[in-house]
């Protein structure tokens, strides 16, 4: 598995191709890309800042990835998350799971995203026309994570 937490932008297409490039046993790759939107909760969003807890972030993501590898027969798993300043339209997060068959890859990708949303220490601060504001956590994220229990 690969865990990357970085301020640098990334190309989701390059990341997806790398999921099967070195392993022809991979029959399925499922990926998720999260992007910064230009509108949220009734406000225009001009930009975003991603704060995190250095040290814990990497550990929390690795723990989620290990759990996914224990639950499904994965050939590769990648989790990539941006930190720092981001603009609307930029990718924030990339999760991809590779396996021999599709179901394990679909499930593992959804599982990692649902757990990341509730357990990885990242916080979004949006810049809007009315100033900067911290994004609130959503109860629906917890409901999504609970379905894997």
């Amino acid at each position, binding site marked *: 598995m690969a865990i990357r937490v970085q301020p640098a932008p990334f190309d989701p297409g390059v990341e997806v191709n790398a999921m099967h490039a070195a392993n022809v046993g991979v029959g399925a790759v499922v990926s998720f890309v999260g992007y910064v939107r230009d509108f949220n909760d009734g406000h225009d969003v001009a930009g975003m800042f991603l704060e995190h*807890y250095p040290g*814990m972030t990497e*550990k929390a993501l690795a723990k989620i990835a290990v759990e996914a590898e224990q639950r499904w027969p994965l050939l590769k798993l990648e989790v990539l998350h941006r930190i720092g300043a981001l603009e609307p339209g930029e990718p924030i997060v990339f999760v991809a799971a590779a396996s021999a068959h599709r179901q394990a890859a679909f499930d593992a990708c959804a599982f990692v995203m649902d757990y990341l949303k509730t357990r*990885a*220490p990242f916080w979004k601060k949006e810049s809007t026309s009315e100033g900067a504001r*911290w994004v609130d*956590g959503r109860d629906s994220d917890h409901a999504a994570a609970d379905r894997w229990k």
Partner: protein
Amino acid sequence: MSINVLFFARYSETIGLDSLEMEGDFATVDAVRQALVGDPGFDVLNETSLMCARNQEMCSVDEPLEAGDEVAFFPPVTGG
């Protein structure tokens, strides 16, 4: 015992600190929180949605502590 306490995101902004060192006898994470909220500057730690971690692992406020531990308080996470 000495405990290193960290605050993140909205909490560190509201409190005006990223971290502080505390000396005292703290049985649990909540004992640290209780000691801090005696000062009105730390009122934000009374929020019911508060999350915490001990040594960079998410935990409940009842988590026991040992000398030298790192404790973090933060609002619900919003990554992804």
